[in-house]
């Protein structure tokens, strides 16, 4: 305990505090800009830290990571343009709240739940990192496949109005994820001779197209009306209350745990975590009937989960040298640049660097929650912008954001195609979220399945048989059954009650 306090004081030195604040602000901006992910932000800013000492550099990069996870939700809530793929789930309820004139409330909840998620993730990183990293080793191909399959069962709860249509969209998403190279042999698949398609369809342009471009088309469909005076007054008088900090303690806890566990598993990330947490919320929350129509609890579930992922992904990164996702892979390179070797030694020989870094992550969480809750009413005013100007700005941000991903104009065309497709799908009452889910989980599921097939001589039956011999698989299978059945049971109960 004395050690922890000592390292906490180290994180509080003026230089470290300044660097934490700077990193958090940069992270929020990077996260809020569509197409500009934490990975890109850290990659761009690593050269800046070359001359810094290892501790300061790591603190700066960690703060960017924390800030960006929260920042992604700002644009998702305000303009339905997820700044990061992880914030796509937040847009479902966050943007619905904005449309109801509750943007301030959604932003506050996003900041608060992100804070709690981050705290749980960091606590796990601080106290249980080595133990949890060893546990993550038990995740074999079977567990990963079932994890992805469990993720896909979320489609059931997202599409209670028409499960078949939802599943069809999920299949379309899975097919889109197949475009590019096959994960085993590395041969081109569904590329139709195009070298561009060999790299696969990038997530960000597809998500931006489906969410924000389709939204612009929908909002400009009819003649626009000026903003109501009511909204202007509401945002001017909005105040943060202390009770906002503890609105959904149960949601914060279980969503954070979901995010933490998913974060530890390499190859998954905030996007998977937020959908899984959202689905769980839809089953267990008291506000479950409001989910999808502007539920504050829905925002809390997604944001707590995707911020807990930060701590989760850092566990295998720091203890085993296995990056949990692309962002931690870049962070890992930052570690090596500064002469640190990832592994257990970071918690023994290198603890003078590692622990102040972990402590500063708590401070980064504190920094973004303060910026979030006190800035919410100012951020919310974005929605008071005349709709034609807002639409033009969203288009501009989306277009530049897509281009920024790889510096390729073809990504912009992809965004446009997905945008138009998303618009028509919405017009014909299709849910577009399963497409995104399919795209996220397709790669994970296929890779795990192919690994299993190699291990069991292409015998699918043998793979399925092993599911019942592995405790984590059994737990995941049970969770899948609950996830599929619960929405229908609740729908039936609701109908009976009416």
């Amino acid at each position, binding site marked *: 305990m004395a050690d922890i306090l000592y390292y906490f004081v180290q994180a509080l030195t003026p230089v470290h505090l300044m660097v934490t604040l700077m990193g958090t602000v940069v992270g929020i901006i*990077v996260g809020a*800009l569509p197409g*500009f992910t934490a990975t*890109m*932000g850290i990659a*761009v800013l690593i050269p800046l830290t070359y001359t810094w000492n290892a501790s300061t550099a790591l603190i700066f990069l960690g703060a960017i990571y924390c800030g960006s996870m929260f920042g992604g939700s700002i644009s998702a809530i305000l303009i339905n343009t997820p700044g990061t793929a992880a914030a796509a789930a937040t847009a479902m309820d966050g943007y619905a709240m904005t449309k109801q004139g509750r943007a301030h409330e959604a932003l506050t909840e996003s900041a608060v739940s992100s804070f709690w998620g981050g705290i749980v993730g960091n606590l796990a990183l601080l106290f249980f990192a080595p133990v949890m990293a060893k546990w993550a080793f038990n995740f074999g191909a079977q567990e990963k496949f079932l994890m992805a399959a469990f993720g896909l069962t979320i489609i059931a709860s997202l599409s209670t109005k028409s499960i*078949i*249509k939802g*599943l*069809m969209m999920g*299949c*379309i998403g*899975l*097919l889109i994820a*197949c475009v590019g190279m*096959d994960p*085993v*042999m590395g*041969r081109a*698949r*569904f590329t139709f001779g195009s070298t561009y398609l060999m790299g696969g369809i990038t997530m960000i342009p597809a998500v931006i197209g489906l969410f924000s*471009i389709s939204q612009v*088309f929908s909002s*400009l*469909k*009819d*003649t*626009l*009306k*000026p903003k109501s005076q009511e909204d202007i007054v509401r945002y001017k008088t909005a105040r943060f209350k202390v009770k906002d900090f503890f609105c959904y303690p149960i949601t914060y806890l279980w969503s954070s745990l979901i995010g933490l566990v998913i974060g530890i598993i390499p190859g998954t990330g905030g996007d998977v975590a937020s959908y899984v947490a959202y689905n769980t919320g839809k089953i267990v929350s008291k506000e479950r009937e409001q989910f999808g129509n502007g539920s504050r609890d829905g925002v809390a579930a997604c944001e707590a989960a995707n911020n807990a992922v930060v701590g989760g992904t850092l566990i295998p990164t720091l203890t085993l040298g296995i990056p949990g996702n692309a962002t931690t892979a870049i962070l890992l390179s930052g570690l090596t640049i500064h002469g640190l070797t990832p592994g257990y030694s970071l918690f023994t020989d290198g603890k003078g660097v590692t622990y102040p870094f972990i402590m500063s992550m708590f401070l980064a969480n504190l920094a973004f929650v303060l910026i979030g809750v006190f800035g919410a009413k100012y951020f919310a005013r974005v929605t008071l912008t*005349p*709709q*034609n*100007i807002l*639409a*033009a*700005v969203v*288009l*501009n*941000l989306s*277009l*530049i954001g897509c*281009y*920024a991903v790889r*510096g390729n*104009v073809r990504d*912009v*065309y992809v965004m*446009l195609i997905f*945008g*138009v497709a998303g618009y028509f799908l919405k*017009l*014909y*009452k*299709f849910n577009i979220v399963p497409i995104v889910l399919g795209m996220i989980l397709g790669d994970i*599921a*296929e890779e795990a*399945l*192919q690994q299993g*097939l190699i291990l069991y001589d292409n015998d699918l039956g043998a793979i399925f048989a092993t599911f019942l011999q592995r405790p984590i698989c059994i737990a995941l299978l049970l969770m899948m059954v609950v996830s599929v059945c619960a929405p229908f049971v609740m729908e039936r109960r609701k109908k009976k009650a009416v």
Partner: protein
Amino acid sequence: MQKKNVVTSIICAAVFLFFLFQCGALSETAAYWPRMICIVGLALSTLEIALEGSKWYRTRDSQERLWALNLEQTKRGLILLGVLILWCLGLNTIGFLVTSLAALCAVALYFEPIKSRRHVIRDIAACLIIGVIVYVMFGYLGVHFPRALLI
């Protein structure tokens, strides 16, 4: 809605069928997973066609229009799509910034509900300022925009 559901499901089925045929040209390992998806997708589409088709047959709503938009909405959508396509085409030929500013102003002005002098000036000023700020900000973050005839 049944008529729309049937037609959209037929389109989805056609997509799955197309990709199922494409799987034939792939190696066995590469085709394994997408083939599974296509078969499931095709089964779901067929089920949806059968279910919605039978409902449609029972209700026989001849008033239901297949196209979900009215004439004005179609026109607005097409104009927006046209601007976006021109915007994309201009990025590499005219220049990123100039095309973006022109497209931003075009969208803001066309969809402005009150076409007064004050509103037009406000829209143009807002688009130019925001457009330049976003361009400079992304440029500062290390994004290299294509340069063509103009900026």
